[in-house]
């Protein structure tokens, strides 16, 4: 797996560098394509680990929706991070801030049920 990732990264890097002086927009497109391919490749390999963890959670009888939320948050932060890195490399720093904000708001909205559940649990514990 690691060999393939390194290979894809090297090829994308070489092509992006080659096209940088000829046409910079093509270079950025190659960079984006390479990054997306790498991200998809990595995420598909992690799906197995996530599924394994979900199975473990369902075996314990714990509500697996909590872990699903964590996975989603992780996914959002990954995607937002990748997008922010691409924008940063392209020199669009204003977009980086907006992507970060969008990511944070998405995570917050996704986690509201979690915070609600924790709050309910705290009230339940205090009431005994």
């Amino acid at each position, binding site marked *: 797996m690691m060999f393939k990732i390194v290979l894809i990264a090297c090829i994308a890097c070489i092509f992006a560098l080659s096209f940088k002086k000829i046409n910079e927009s093509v270079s950025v497109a190659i960079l984006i394509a390479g990054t997306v391919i790498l991200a998809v490749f990595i995420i598909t390999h992690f799906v197995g680990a996530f599924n394994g963890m979900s199975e473990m959670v369902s075996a314990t009888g714990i509500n697996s929706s909590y872990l699903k939320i964590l996975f989603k948050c992780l996914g959002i*932060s990954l995607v937002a991070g990748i997008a922010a890195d691409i924008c940063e490399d392209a020199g669009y720093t204003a977009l980086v801030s907006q992507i970060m904000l969008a990511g944070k708001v998405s995570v917050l909205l996704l986690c509201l049920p979690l915070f609600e559940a*924790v709050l309910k649990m705290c009230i339940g514990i*205090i009431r005994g």
Partner: protein
Amino acid sequence: MKKTGFFLVIFVLLLLFFAQPCYAADESDTYISQSGIYESAAALESETKTFLKEIGLGEITAQNVYALDFFTVLKTVFDSFQNAFRNALKTLTVIAGTVLLSAFAQSFGEGTKGQTIQHILHPVSVCVIVLCSSASFAALIGEAAAGVRSAAAFSISAVPIMCVICAAQGKAVSASLCSAATVGISQVLNTCFSVYFIPAANIMLALGISACANNTLHLDKAVKLIRKYLLIFLGGGALVYFTVLSVRTSVSSAVDESTVKTIKFASANFIPVIGGAIGDSAQAVAASLAVSKSTVGVFGLFCILAIFIPIISKILVWIIGLEICSLFSEAFSLDQETVCLKHLADTLTVFIVVIIFCVTMFFINFGVLLTLRGAV
């Protein structure tokens, strides 16, 4: 005539007085039922009931207590630990997995130059850890509270039993007072534990969770304060209890022995005709009382063990597991997760201290009941 009538009245009174203990060998079950054990046993957790069944106390009778096998009890205790470990291990694995995921997410932010989104995942992973452990925790805290409440109920039922035994043995009230004070203080402490300590520990847990979810509130100081005062009050309670216990041990035993022996000697030598009979019957009474009290005592000890062993084993496994998980998250520099796991472990430590103190008081209380026979 008047003299004979007088001694007849005394004889009848003494017979009435000793009537219950004379048949005490057959009435051990009555003593057990008087202790309110059946009501408390009915309210026990299913796991504790299973534990009782497995050690051979499915049906609470004196015969079953005598038939207890040491190796069966040992095996059941070991199995209880094993089950607690197996059940906690699954949840602890999920917690460790969440810590790993959080570390994984944190690692994405390490290489980037500018702002990162990864730090927003820490409160989320703390919430997931808390919610994953909450199901086990709620049951554990409930069991601990039920155990402490049962201990309080047993402790309250111990005083009437002790009074019956003291009255039946003809013990001096002054001597019994020290024992009553010991048991009485344990009653007060047990009630304090169930009414104040467990709710305070619950509040501490809730504040600890809130402190981890949002570290800008600085609630961890409140948590530390509650923990400090809980331990201070616990230490104070222990000091009072053991002071009274040591006073009782040094003062009452000598008084008890001399008083009861004097009563025996007086009844045998100064009451004509029937005095010898009373003196002889006193030996039978003492023997049967010994059986009865041992039964109550041994039964009480096994009940306390049965109530507390599953809870203690679970809490111990959880404390160890949470400490390992906190070390694990500390290794990845996940501060919020580490603090959360430490708060959870600290709360459980307070619970286990309270429970162990309850168990200790219980053993001593039943020891007090058992030593009361030594005077006759």
